[in-house]
């Protein structure tokens, strides 16, 4: 069975600073996808970034980037130039043939 672990229940960062959220996963599969989702207080889950396991290059989407370490089964999210609108729950997710497994989330607060 696949498991996803987010070891930081809560984090905070000053506006304009950089923060890194951690995620590890456990799988015996070789081909899979990893995702970071953001869930603001309004509760709608929004895709932040996606990484295919067969790609060595780390994914980047504007201020969001990942550090994907396949051998270590690690998938961290870096948010640069943090903005107040980044305040939300962040979930790391693993996907294999359509089955999704989510971590327990990290609550990020951006401080003005």
């Amino acid at each position, binding site marked *: 069975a696949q498991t996803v672990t987010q070891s930081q229940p809560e984090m905070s960062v000053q506006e304009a600073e950089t923060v890194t959220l951690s995620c590890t996963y456990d799988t015996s599969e070789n081909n899979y996808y990893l*995702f970071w989702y953001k869930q603001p207080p309004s*509760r709608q889950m929004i895709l932040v970034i996606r990484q*295919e396991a067969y790609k060595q290059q780390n994914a980047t989407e504007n201020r969001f980037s990942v550090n994907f370490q396949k051998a270590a089964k690690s998938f961290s999210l870096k948010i640069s130039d943090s903005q107040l609108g980044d305040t939300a729950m962040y979930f790391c997710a693993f996907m294999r*043939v*359509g089955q*999704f497994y*989510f971590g327990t*989330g990290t609550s990020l607060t951006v401080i003005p």
Partner: protein
Amino acid sequence: DAGVTQSPTHLIKTRGQQVTLRCSPISGHKSVSWYQQVLGQGPQFIFQYYEKEERGRGNFPDRFSARQFPNYSSELNVNALLLGDSALYLCASSLRDPAGRGYEQYFGPGTRLTVT
């Protein structure tokens, strides 16, 4: 284009009752997945449908069932409700085959179910 829509927004039921939740995917999306999110936890995968066929099932009891219609909308049914079924139920849709590359999904706002 409209995003994933779910109805109703909120629902209150009594233990032992049955409930039906509805989801309309983004236009053109053929895959729908259902998740249960208990307060303070990450979503738990319940079902996935692609082209009206069940493609995946999470570790939920048989009281939970779902189906996908020819227009790709979906319903989630829960029978014999328990207090522990109280949660936010999320629906997500995807354009692609979940077994294929490039798969990603888009979530609806959810249905908040309270069982008393």
